[in-house]
């Protein structure tokens, strides 16, 4: 059984990084995150440039503006912080199933990753790199326990992004740190400072029994941590069922192009999380938060993706088609994209079989065709369980993988097979909707067809005339609606038509032309 080893990825100033992840264009500006809006709001987090400009934590916005005129003030967004936390969880879940998400950190069990990585330092480096790929810059430490790894990751210098402490050396690794780095309760820190203890090593040198007598259980736990003996287990966080990325907008958007620009960034974050998980994007939901007065506050659109993909232009094209076909009813104040990670569809290509379209490209093309033709008008024809001739439906186009093409021969007759021409089928051209006509009859025999003056057939004028041959009738029963008698007729002009007589209404229709 592998020895338990815990990696802890710590992201300093997570709310600030969450904001920069959503709006990377703010990275160059002096930036502060506040606890509200208005001049009296307090600064919670500040960027390096803001700190250099003399803006202190806890200062009011008015004071921050006085210190630096070009400071960008943004109120803290809980949704952005939650999304960043979920992204951290995705990064960790890609390496281990045992993951605990905490404030500004994620801890995971890495004791059994020895076969995948050459060293624990490599694991730490990989975790830091994966976090950077989802837009979060952090530091990772690997140690025997969660608390030790977390302390080491938090207190490491910003240039040291990966730390590994060998098993049994935790006490030595913690020893030079100031005692405050372990974040003890304030009263205990004050007391031991009065005793003249400054570092972890100073406190660890005390007798545990004496510490317990004087400081109680809290002091004992602190002593155990100073000795690197923490045994608090990981408290696993359940993996998120969906990936949700949101973007609140400072100004409402009324036109499509700026909205697509925002969507591009949001999709970028979604795809980076999917990539961290090794998954792809299937169908996704686009949620638009609308300005008040539109009748509804949230506009939800389900966007179908033909094949799971991580291709951002393809996903953006689908979102564009959905928005173009049905623009939002009001200005947009915020956007969100939610999707469920889907396993990428493996495609086995062959040298000898015809190549089909790329799934991503096909999805976009189907979306474009859907926008051109309307909803439910593009897909794979489907035979319906119906007696009515011409009844067919459409299902989503999901072609089977290409098959091996049969070997070609020189003779087309051989290729077609014997009697292929003889088996050619007389096709019906379905008239949708059926064209109402008048039929002249005598003693049950059909004599002539004439178009109704108001119908489209009248304009065309070629589906009427005397009938020279007719066959029928074929009564169709069991259909919902009126029973019908079907006939095949040949007009004097040579046209072959299929007619039906609706018995309950005594009306005649042409429903197909043999073509």
């Amino acid at each position, binding site marked *: 059984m592998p020895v338990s080893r815990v990696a802890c990825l710590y992201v300093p100033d997570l709310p600030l990084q969450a904001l920069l992840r959503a709006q990377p264009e703010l990275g160059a500006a002096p930036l502060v995150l506040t606890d509200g809006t208005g001049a009296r709001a307090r600064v919670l987090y500040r960027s390096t440039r803001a700190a250099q400009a003399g803006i202190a934590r806890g200062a009011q916005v008015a004071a921050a503006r006085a210190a630096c005129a070009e400071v960008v003030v943004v109120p803290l967004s809980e949704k952005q912080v939650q999304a960043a936390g979920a992204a951290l969880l995705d990064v960790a879940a890609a390496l281990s199933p045992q993951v605990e998400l905490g404030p500004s950190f994620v801890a995971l069990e890495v004791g059994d990753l020895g076969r995948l990585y050459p060293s624990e330092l490599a694991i730490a480096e990989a975790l830091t790199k994966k976090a950077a790929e989802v837009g979060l810059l952090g530091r990772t430490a690997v140690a025997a326990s969660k608390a030790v790894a977390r302390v080491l990751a938090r207190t490491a210098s910003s240039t040291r992004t990966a730390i590994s402490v060998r098993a049994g050396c935790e006490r030595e690794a913690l020893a030079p740190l100031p005692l405050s780095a372990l974040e003890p309760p304030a009263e205990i820190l004050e007391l031991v400072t009065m005793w003249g203890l400054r570092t972890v090593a100073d406190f660890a040198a005390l007798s545990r029994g004496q510490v317990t007598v004087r400081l109680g259980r809290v002091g004992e736990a602190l002593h155990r941590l100073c000795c690197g003996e923490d045994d608090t287990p990981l408290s696993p966080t359940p993996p998120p069922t969906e990936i949700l990325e949101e973007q609140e907008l400072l100004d409402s958007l009324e036109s499509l192009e700026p909205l697509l620009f925002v969507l591009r960034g949001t999709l970028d974050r979604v795809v980076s999380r999917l990539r961290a998980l090794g998954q792809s994007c299937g169908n996704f939901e686009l949620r638009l938060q609308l300005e008040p007065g539109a009748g509804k506050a949230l506009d939800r659109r389900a966007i179908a993706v033909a094949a799971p993909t991580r291709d951002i232009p393809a996903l953006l094209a689908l979102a564009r088609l959905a928005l173009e076909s049905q623009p939002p009813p009001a200005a947009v104040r915020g956007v969100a994209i939610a999707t469920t990670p889907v396993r990428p569809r493996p495609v086995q290509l062959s040298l000898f*079989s015809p190549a089909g379209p790329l799934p991503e490209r096909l999805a976009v093309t189907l979306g474009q065709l859907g926008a051109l033709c309307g909803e439910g*008008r593009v897909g794979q024809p489907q035979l319906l369980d119906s007696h009515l001739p011409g009844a067919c439906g459409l299902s989503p186009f999901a072609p089977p993988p290409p098959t091996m093409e049969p070997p070609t021969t020189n003779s087309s007759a051989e290729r077609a097979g014997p009697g292929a021409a003889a088996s050619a*089928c007389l096709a019906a051209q379905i008239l949708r909707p059926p064209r109402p006509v008048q039929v002249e009859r005598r003693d049950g025999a059909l004599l002539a067809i004439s178009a109704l003056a108001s119908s489209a057939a009248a304009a065309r004028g070629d589906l009427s005339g005397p009938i020279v041959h007719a066959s029928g009738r074929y009564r169709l029963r069991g259909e919902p609606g009126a029973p019908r008698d079907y006939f095949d007729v040949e007009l004097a002009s*040579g046209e*072959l038509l299929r007619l039906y007589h609706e018995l309950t209404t005594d009306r005649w229709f042409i429903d197909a032309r043999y073509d």
Partner: protein
Amino acid sequence: MFGSAAKEAPQTAVSIADLRRIISDQSPRQTREQPAFSTSLPNLDEALSGGLPRGKLLELQGGAGKMSFALLTLAAATRAGQLAAFIDAEDAFDAETAARAGVDLARLLWVRLPQAGERERGRDALRALDLLLAAGGFGLAVVYIDTVRSRLDVAWPRLVQRAERGGAAVLLCAEQPVAGSFAAATLRCAPGEAIWERVPGGRMLLRGRRLRIEVVRSRLGAPSGAEAVALRK
């Protein structure tokens, strides 16, 4: 000078068909890497140098028989494992007949264009064709614009180029020519007599129709082929 040429003409008289054959024999043939789709009609395949050529636009005109011929080609393409598309400007496709004709419906994309004016339908059909050719991966695209009777002002060179690049055979089915000289070959359907059969009881049954398909213009070879086929209902 013109007079002397006119006098000489009867002595060197050649038919238009001979001239076409001579020109076609002398022009370089483009080699096709992918095999053409057989139309299942041997004479027609021979006239088209092997069948429906990949990467080319073909036009099929005529009054009746276009849908039946289109289904023949769709069946050939899907039987070969290719994806095919039916761009339906008339909303006239019948899945039941297609299945009976041997079309693998799982490999067929049916694009049902909304019913609009003649020009709009023609334009939308070719726009859909453009999108499909740009996507690539389709072996055959049939554009069924039966009632579009006017020449369509679209970027034909672009469509031809996309078809060439994607290696897709394109069959334009219209009553009148719409692509003109941009089509590599023009086929014409001439419907023949219907086949009726008298059954016991004196009643008549429609059994099918005769159809003649001929190549009236071709850059693929001499336009001399024709095929008579009996379509069975």
